[in-house]
């Protein structure tokens, strides 16, 4: 549904032409304005009717009413150009206006109908172009950013979905600063460890970065390619996160390569310093197994719609075997930390402490025997560590499981917990081929995910059954952004937010295991609902989140401040409870707050005499509601 502020299809403004003031053409050349005294025939008039606003890329039907002539045919113009053009939009001979795909510099166009009987007589209306509806804009921001703000909603309304995506694709990555080992920066010196610095940088970037989509996708990727400072140094995080952010719009094969060679993943899943096995040992299987099981293929062979392939006995077909795990494990041997300048080394293991540069190979520690990989692909003996690695990653990347496995999880993180098989199929097809023959094009995949009919259905149907639980980190960033919290920490640290999210079982880059904070296949007990984030919501965290909401509206979040006083914007709005609640509905709920919820909150705050308290209580009731917690 298009909001009333932008569109009113029922109440159409009739803009009558100037023909009433003129008397044209009946008597021929002798007629001049104001001098005609006895027209033989009433003057021709043209009146145009139609919508006052049109969304870019969509159409509006205009009609012309021509009076006082039997020839009612008209010629349609946009901004005075017959048939219009691609900049201002085109219009058909029957008055069907097609808005341009992107907003022109002037967002208002004039639609005119010119009488064919009397070409000097025309009717004109003004049509304002807009990018997206309020609901679309705010929902898109819930899917593509760390939380909508009033400004961002307005911006997306104006530039539209594809305009916003194009802008965001062009935004360069905000990079997390490297963390020196000694001395540690002031903000993590107190903890005497680097991870608080990494988390502070991460929060700040998520909340304030202008590359919101890139960071949001990087966050999703960080929950798929999981590393954790519970067992790797905080210094490893900035370069890892920066790689995910930089690669977010590249190719999935690039992400695989950069993750594989990162010291963060190397340290976390032990490809770092994994040497070729001697006679009495086996190669470390950790990265080999999890790269396939968790990051790219999953356990079972998949169809392109994400469903599991079964054998003749109805048993799932494994995506790989234990023997293949051991073969890949040998292919990944021989990698260690680069020297402090990022260069090659001969020492193995090399503990230079350089967690900023990709790992480097020491050939003498690489297993050079041949390996048989997926689909019978054989890596011949005698290859270098780099050759084996590249071939192994290519072997996995080209497996048909990667599209449905990876796209399903990206959809779950960005849009909905339980996408339909058809939705997964459509996105998997784009993963397989972006239209130009390229596999793994992340921009194309992300565009397909966000513009799919299933992602956008909720724009016009507030009760569309889908969405996903707002995980604790996204809850906190959304609060910071929407309510306008500002940082007051002496060192500019955002780390206090980790203390808040950790209570709810989530802390950036600090998961308990490689299985992330929650698994993609989690099913809510006593239901058949696949809803990953629900794995970390239970009766204990539910209460803790209520307490967090109380702290948020009462300005009790350490290192941050927010103004919700009587004189704040929210406080002033609270003078009229309905206005306040409608603003909160826009800011937090895509203007889709159910009527019953709206009236409950209005009734709850109206008796309060303090506008500040009205604001606090109303915000609390909105942000603790299940309607808000489920991004839908």
């Amino acid at each position, binding site marked *: 549904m298009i909001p009333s502020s932008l569109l009113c299809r029922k109440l159409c403004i009739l803009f009558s032409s100037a023909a009433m003031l003129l008397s044209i053409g009946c008597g021929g050349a002798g007629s001049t304005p104001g001098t005609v005294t006895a027209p033989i025939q009433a003057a021709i008039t043209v009146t145009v009717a139609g919508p006052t606003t049109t969304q870019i890329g969509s159409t509006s039907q205009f009609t012309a009413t021509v009076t006082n002539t039997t020839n009612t045919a008209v010629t349609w113009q946009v901004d005075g150009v017959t048939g219009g053009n691609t900049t201002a939009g085109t219009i058909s001979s029957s008055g069907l206006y097609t808005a341009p795909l992107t907003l022109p510099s002037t967002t208002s166009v004039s639609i005119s109908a010119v009488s064919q009987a009397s070409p000097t007589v025309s009717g004109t209306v003004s049509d304002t172009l807009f990018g997206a509806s309020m609901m679309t804009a705010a929902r898109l921001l819930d899917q593509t950013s760390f939380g909508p703000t009033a400004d961002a909603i307005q911006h997306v309304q104006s530039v539209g979905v594809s305009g916003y995506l194009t802008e965001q694709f062009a935004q360069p990555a905000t990079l997390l600063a490297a963390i020196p080992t000694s001395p540690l920066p002031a903000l993590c010196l107190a903890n005497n460890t680097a991870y608080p610095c990494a988390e502070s940088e991460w929060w700040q970037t998520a909340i304030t970065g202008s590359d919101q989509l890139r960071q949001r996708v990087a966050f999703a990727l960080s929950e798929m390619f999981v590393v954790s400072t*519970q067992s790797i140094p905080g210094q490893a995080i900035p370069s890892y996160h920066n790689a995910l952010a930089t690669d977010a719009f590249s190719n999935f094969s690039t992400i695989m390569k950069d993750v594989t060679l990162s010291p963060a993943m190397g340290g976390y*899943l*032990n490809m770092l*310093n*994994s*040497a*070729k096995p001697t006679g*009495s*040992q*086996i190669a*470390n*299987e950790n990265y080999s*197994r999890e790269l396939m099981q968790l990051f790219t293929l999953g*356990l079972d062979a998949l169809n392109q719609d994400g469903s599991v392939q079964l054998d003749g006995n109805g048993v799932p077909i494994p995506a790989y075997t*234990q023997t293949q*795990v051991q073969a890949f494990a040998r292919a990944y041997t021989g990698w260690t930390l680069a020297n402090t300048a990022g260069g090659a080394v001969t020492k193995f293991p090399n503990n230079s402490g350089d967690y900023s540069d990709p790992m480097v190979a020491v050939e003498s520690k690489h297993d050079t025997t041949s390996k048989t990989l997926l689909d019978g692909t054989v890596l011949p003996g005698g290859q270098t560590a780099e050759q084996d690695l590249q071939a192994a990653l290519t072997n996995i990347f080209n497996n048909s499981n990667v599209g449905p496995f990876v796209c399903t999880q990206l959809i779950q993180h960005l849009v909905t*917990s339980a996408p339909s098989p058809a939705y997964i199929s459509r996105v998997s097809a784009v993963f397989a081929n972006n239209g130009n023959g390229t596999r793994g094009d992340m921009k194309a995949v992300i565009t397909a995910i966000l513009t799919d009919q299933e992602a956008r259905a909720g724009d016009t149907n507030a*009760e569309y*059954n*889908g969405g996903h*639980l707002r995980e604790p980190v996204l809850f906190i960033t959304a609060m910071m952004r929407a309510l306008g919290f500002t940082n007051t920490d002496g060192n500019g640290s955002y780390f206090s937010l980790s203390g808040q999210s950790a209570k709810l079982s989530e802390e950036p880059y600090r998961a*308990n*295991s*490689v*299985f992330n904070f929650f*698994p993609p296949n989690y099913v809510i*007990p006593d*239901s058949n*609902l696949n809803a990953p984030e*629900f*794995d*970390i*919501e*239970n*009766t*204990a*965290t*539910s*209460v*803790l989140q*209520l307490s967090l909401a*109380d702290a948020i509206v*009462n300005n*009790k979040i350490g290192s941050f401040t927010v103004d919700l006083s009587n004189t704040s914007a929210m406080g002033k709005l609270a003078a009229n409870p309905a206005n306040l609640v409608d603003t909160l509905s826009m800011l937090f709920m895509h203007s889709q707050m*159910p009527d019953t*919820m709206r009236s*409950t909150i209005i009734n*709850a705050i109206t*008796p309060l005499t303090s506008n500040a*308290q009205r604001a*606090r*209580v109303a915000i*609390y*009731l909105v942000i*603790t509601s*299940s*309607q808000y*917690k*489920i991004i*839908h």
Partner: protein
Amino acid sequence: MRRRSFIKYASLAAAGNIAGLKPFGALNALAAGATDYKALVCVFLYGGNDANNMIVPFDNTGYATYQSIRGPLALGKTAPTGNNASDGYIQQIQSIPGFGLHSGLSDIATLINSDVAAPVVNVGNLTQPLTRTQYLANQLGSVPSNLFSHPDQQVEWQNAAASGATTTGWAGRISDAINGTYNGSATIPMVTSVAGDTLFCNGVRTTPVSVSPGNLGGASCSEGAECSARLAAAQSLITLSSGISLVTADDNITSNAYAYAATLTAATKSATALKTTFPANNGLAAQLQQIAQIINVRAALGVKRQIFFCGIGNFDTHSNQLVLQANLLGQIGPALAAFYQSTTEMGIANQVTAFTMSDFARTFQPNSNSGTDHAWGSHHFVIGGAVKGGAMYGAYPTLALGGPDDSGSNGRWVPSIGSVQYASTLAQWFGVPQNQLATVFPTITNFNTTDLGFI
């Protein structure tokens, strides 16, 4: 409490293991705790604990075999020094002299020697009894799905090896079966998790109460006199119907959260604090302490049967195993000892049984990275006054790569005991009647023994 347990307790106290509790206090507590009550406490070791370095042959021949294959990961029989001081070592178990226990678990050794704890060896997920030969013959129908995968093997331990995906765990199914029999007047569910949501806790009709250790109370409110109005409005929002499935699901959880928080707050408000000291800076100990505090108010909660879930992670020791595992076991030993002590303080040591579970054991053959990889059959502990302690249950695997117990050639033991048998033994002690056993454990009928006799 049986006299034998009292002596055990007294000897622990004499050894300085119990702080601040005199024997007469224990007797009083014993009298007070004599009502019908039993609790099972699951301690899940996430990541796959390398049990091969937890219980090790101590006789010369057995140890030599262990040492030769384990190579750089072999633990010594004496405390290491210098750079290796944090690696741990093997200490002989007095009551099971052929075996030694990791030094991080010396408190558990004390409990074994006091006959209130027992190791159960080479337990793992099975759908039916299985030999190496059968496994290698690739009899797929008889092998649990997705062996060596963490999440799958965790799930199979928790649902008691109903191979493949199920939506219930065995604690939840026990609750489905007997909650009505025992907990008719209970104000909270039979199952409590202090380590988040897990499959173990969920039944067809059962969802657990979750507790965040140290946060038993309700949500905070800073709105003074308006708090009750705010609460009323928030609770009224929960009741509004929605066409969004996840909104409804979230409403259900929130609604339970309000109810359980109120119940637990009321029950614990006037409770006497436990005197048992739990180790500080020990996440598992904090969870077990929270469990003890809830058990302590069992009468106010109206529960006669409770199952608890707690856990500790980072056992996935693919590298640097010696230091990592020694640190983790060094947390488990003191935490479980303190918990046992708290049950003696409450006078219900015979009525509370703790036990371990873990994804799987790890390859007996070390990898080239000072670590081990995912394997299968593993060793576990059961602890409590009801345990027939001081003995080892099950057949310790033959430590030979490619040997009779190896599923392949890297020392991934084919279990000799199914995790479902381990579970069903505990369940029968807990009160699941024979005629419900197959309902709770659908695969138990594939095994000859449903009770391993350790309790």
